[in-house]
């Protein structure tokens, strides 16, 4: 294939050096991974890996490098590799992040980069935890649209303002970064956790839904919204930038105003 038509296309002046480029910097890092291999050793331990990585690499690339070139038994979940599937929430340098969204160049290379499983859920192997308790809480808040009466026969209208009320919480990818960063959830695992509340919020404030009261009832529980101590770890951890604590506050207020 070639361009046969010589006629000029409309053009603009590009700023010089536009579009980035240049040499991609290279650097050495120490990746310190919290290993847990229940079939071989009883306890978790730290293991260091020295790696040479590139400026565009993410923590996920470093983990892949270890798995693919050094130690195939290193286990972690991942799929999409660009922060949309929610598989790879883990504690990176002490904070919950998605490995595929954390660029190595943004981290301090003079110290080892620590990587551990998220806290508060049963540890299965290396960076893998059992997500079932997390999904159980999610399922318990009725995370689906309920409408009383008949199925509507055509599309329901919704104004942009009504849509805006819950748009933020529709972004959730159920990665558990928030719930597993919550100090209250760590204590006994009974708290519904921010992710469940976020997903309840998404429906409570949807103008098309009719089961808001039931969800408020569910969350007006001793393990519900009132256990939140507004520590904001969840909001800081959310890779989707959801204002989690704000959503929780809105749910609290909805329960209050409903009871008063």
């Amino acid at each position, binding site marked *: 294939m070639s361009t046969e038509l010589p006629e000029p296309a409309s053009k603009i002046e590009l700023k010089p050096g536009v579009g980035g480029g240049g040499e991609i910097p290279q650097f050495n890092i120490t990746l310190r991974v*919290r290993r847990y291999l229940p079939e071989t050793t009883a306890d*978790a331990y730290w293991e260091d890996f020295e790696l040479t990585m590139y400026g565009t690499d993410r923590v996920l690339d470093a983990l892949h490098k270890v798995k693919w070139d050094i130690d195939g038994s290193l286990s972690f979940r991942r799929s999409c590799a660009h922060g949309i599937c929610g598989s790879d929430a883990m*504690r990176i340098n002490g904070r919950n992040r998605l490995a595929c969204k954390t660029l190595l160049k943004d981290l301090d290379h003079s110290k080892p980069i620590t990587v551990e499983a998220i806290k508060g859920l049963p*540890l299965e192997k290396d960076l893998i935890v059992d997500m079932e308790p997390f999904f159980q809480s999610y399922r318990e808040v009725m995370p689906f649209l309920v409408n009383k009466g008949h199925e509507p026969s055509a599309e329901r209208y919704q104004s942009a303002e009504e849509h805006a009320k819950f748009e933020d919480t529709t972004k959730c990818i159920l990665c558990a970064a928030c719930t597993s960063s919550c100090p209250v959830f760590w204590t006994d695992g009974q708290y519904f956790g921010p992710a469940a509340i976020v997903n309840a919020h998404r429906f409570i404030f949807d103008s098309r839904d009719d089961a808001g009261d039931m969800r408020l009832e569910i969350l007006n529980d001793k393990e519900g919204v009132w256990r939140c101590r*507004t*520590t*904001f*770890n969840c909001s800081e951890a959310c890779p989707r930038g959801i204002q989690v604590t704000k959503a929780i*506050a809105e749910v609290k207020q909805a329960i209050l105003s409903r009871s008063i």
Partner: protein
Amino acid sequence: MSKTSSGTLYRGREGMWSWVGHRITGVVIFLFLLVHVLDTSLVRVSPGAYDAVMATYKNPLMALGETALVAAIVFHAFNGLRLILVDFWKQGTKYQRQMLWGVLALWVITMLAFSIRHLSLAFGGH
């Protein structure tokens, strides 16, 4: 019972550390309150007993302890107001961090004023 991940301390940010502070100060104040009600009750026993206990509060070492206690109360109180704003003010969650800096600033000012007065009273005598 299952094992959950231990490992490093979670590196929370302002929100988490202010909560740790709020919790610790809350318990400290509560414990003090228990003692404080008991010692105040001595006024029912006899003025002498009460004054004897009060005298121990007046030693300079206790003055430092009192300053610490007031520091705890003042932090807990200001941060408590911040938490209330977070809960009830629409923009509260957005400005929680700025409000914490506000709390700390107010706390420093209050404590400076208080310590100067209190410690000079305690150490300086009349």
